[in-house]
């Protein structure tokens, strides 16, 4: 493991203490003002620059309007009714036992084969941190420390590596970017920090699953991943199990930075609680995810499987700044019941010979409403830029809908931008063919839909792909017939 010896020392000593996050015991009353922000920052023992940053963001936020352009509907959100700081949930109120949980949710846990103890964690029931003692987590940390990889909560990073955070935080998604990103910058609760030193190929897939406190990072999560020159990391966010949360609004920010010849693969399975059959109680997922291919020949790919949440509003994007850098977006989004999703990507080609690939597979059933919104922008100086977009929608039933809204702005004549879009219904021929071979209608649909999503699943790490397929099948149960 070559790279940065300076970091190795710090990292090792840090990892000896493991992932310690002190537990605060109180919750701030609802409401947002400068004092609340100062309090959050103080409670987290943040460096001065961070407090200032949060305040600047807050002041800017006051001047911003809530966006209205996405094709989604929801009742107005009262931002003064939200508590912006609360202690980790396992000590507080919340459901006391599985009896208090939506039975439909429990059924899904059982189908996914999730152990009982873990079901409780996912459902937000107070349990001791069962994963702390798991030896696999310990081995995990040791392996990373040996490689010099930093993987910790962002609060911890702010205290331990303030210069590193200061250099990069907000450098991809500035607080001025959009309403929710600005709010996040002001009040973010916690999140994940990753730094891969020069020339290091991260020896493990990094997953929030291994970060003990990650489940309590709350509604304004912040993630920052930096891949230094020539390094590689694959990061997995979320899990296939549906998670419930008392917070309806989730406004996360994820920033990725890839320096020369570095590669970041970011995979998400999002299965937040979509609400009951009428959509009540579901999560609003308004997240800003952006990767900056800052270095030459750097690569960032976003792969997502989105099946949860009442409303999803997200556009993982790549800024292709470095010469010859490569961006990719692979997405499967499923909307069923009353779910609404407005999702897509932005590929901003700034550097010469930059390339991007977009593969979006949308599946809509029931009353689901789905919009793919994609921007491909080629700047004047982006000589020889290439983009290929493929955007396919599959409708199951006739009450659902799908829209495709491509925006293409090309300022360099040598660029080549290709866009293909299809909308289809599951064909009677295909269904009948499968059934004539002995598959029941539900299995047939699931097989056809999984086939439809194959190109995206191929991009997921193996284990995740298997889970994602299972999840998709479960999501589609009852979609036809």
């Amino acid at each position: 493991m070559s790279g940065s010896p300076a970091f190795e020392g710090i990292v090792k000593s840090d990892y000896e203490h493991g992932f310690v996050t002190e537990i605060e015991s109180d919750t701030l009353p609802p409401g947002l003002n400068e004092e609340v922000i100062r309090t959050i920052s103080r409670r987290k023992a943040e460096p001065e620059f961070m407090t200032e940053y949060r305040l600047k963001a807050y002041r800017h936020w006051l001047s911003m309007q809530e966006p209205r352009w996405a094709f989604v509907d929801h009742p107005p959100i009262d931002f003064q009714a939200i508590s912006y700081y609360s202690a980790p949930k396992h000590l507080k109120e919340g459901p006391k036992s599985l009896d208090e949980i939506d039975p439909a949710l429990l059924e899904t846990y059982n189908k996914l084969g999730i152990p009982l103890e873990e079901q409780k964690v996912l459902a937000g029931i107070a349990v001791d941190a069962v994963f702390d003692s798991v030896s696999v987590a310990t081995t995990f940390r040791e392996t990373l420390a040996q490689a010099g990889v930093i993987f910790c909560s962002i609060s911890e990073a702010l205290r331990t590596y303030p210069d590193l955070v200061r250099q990069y935080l907000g450098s991809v998604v500035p607080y001025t970017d959009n309403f929710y990103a600005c709010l996040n910058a002001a009040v973010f609760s916690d999140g994940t920090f990753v730094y891969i030193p020069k020339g290091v190929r991260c020896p493990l897939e990094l997953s929030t699953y291994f970060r003990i406190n990650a489940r309590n990072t709350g509604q304004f999560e912040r993630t920052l991943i930096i891949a230094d020159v020539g390094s590689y990391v694959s990061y997995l966010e979320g899990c296939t199990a549906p998670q419930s949360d008392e917070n309806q609004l989730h406004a996360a920010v994820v920033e990725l930075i890839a320096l020369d010849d570095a590669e970041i693969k970011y995979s998400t399975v999002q299965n937040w609680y979509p609400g009951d059959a009428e959509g009540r109680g579901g999560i609003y997922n308004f997240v800003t995810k952006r990767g900056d291919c800052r270095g030459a020949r750097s690569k960032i790919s976003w792969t997502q499987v989105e099946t949860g949440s009442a409303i999803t509003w997200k556009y993982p994007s790549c800024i292709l700044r470095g010469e010859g850098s490569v961006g990719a977006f692979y997405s499967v989004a499923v909307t069923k019941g009353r779910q609404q999703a407005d999702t897509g990507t932005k590929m901003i080609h700034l550097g010469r010979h930059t390339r991007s690939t977009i593969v979006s597979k949308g599946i809509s059933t029931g009353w689901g409403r789905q919009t793919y919104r994609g921007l491909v922008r080629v700047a004047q100086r982006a000589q020889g830029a290439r983009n290929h977009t493929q955007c396919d929608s599959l409708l199951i039933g006739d009450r659902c809908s799908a829209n495709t809204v491509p925006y293409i702005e090309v300022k360099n004549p040598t660029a080549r931008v290709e866009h293909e879009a299809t909308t289809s219904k599951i064909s009677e021929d295909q269904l009948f063919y499968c059934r004539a071979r002995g598959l029941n209608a539900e299995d047939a649909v699931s097989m056809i839909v999984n086939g439809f999503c194959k190109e995206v699943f191929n991009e997921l790490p193996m284990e995740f792909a298997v889970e994602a397929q299972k999840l998709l099948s479960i999501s589609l149960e009852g979609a036809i017939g």
Partner: protein
Amino acid sequence: MSQSGVTSMLSIKGLRANVGEREILQGLDLEVGAGEVHAIMGPNGSGKSTLAHVLAGREGYTVTAGSIRFLGEDLLALAPEERAQRGLFLAFQYPVELPGVNNTYFLRTALNSIRRARGEPELDAVSFLRLMREKLKILHLDDSLLKRPVNVGFSGGEKKRNEIFQMTILEPSLAILDETDSGLDIDALRLVADGINALRSAQRSMILVTHYQRLLDYIQPDYVHVLAGGRIIRSGGKELALELEQRGYGWIEAELAA
């Protein structure tokens, strides 16, 4: 039609069926005994594929009169997958493409659905692979086809051979082969015929829909029927096919009209 002592595989009586508003089958009778091979010939558009789809249970094909019994059960009361699980197999005239669905995975899922419905243990991936390799040899199919998505980018002949390959894996009691011979080159026809012959047994019956005598040179049918205007208008032994090859269908219709 079925000789005494032969158990009934399929019994169709007075079958009338519509596609949309149009009546295509207009009072069709057919008896198929266990172990028998029946060839059905007839002009384009006479209703051969319609019969095949009605038997397999395709939606949009409405039976307005008559009955179909399959192995003693009321076939029309069963869903398409239940028919397959009971041992009915249709080799499609136009096999369907399933993008992204791996051929091997598809076939294993199909076989296991059928086994599960019958209360038999499912085959794991390894045993299935062994079974598949064994059957592949019979049809001289390239294994690369098994790694590809079902029928996607297959040549016309490869699609037909894949149908027969599926049949050899699923081992149905009654196979309906809808123009499996069309689009096959001479060598492929031979291989497919060998594959079909290898499956002939006293318990397994077949209905071959074909336009050409050539297939029947390889697979000797017990009976040959002429379907025209939605009904079986003539039945005979294998010599009827030879006669049709020489004289076409016009003379039968003329005889009937006389």
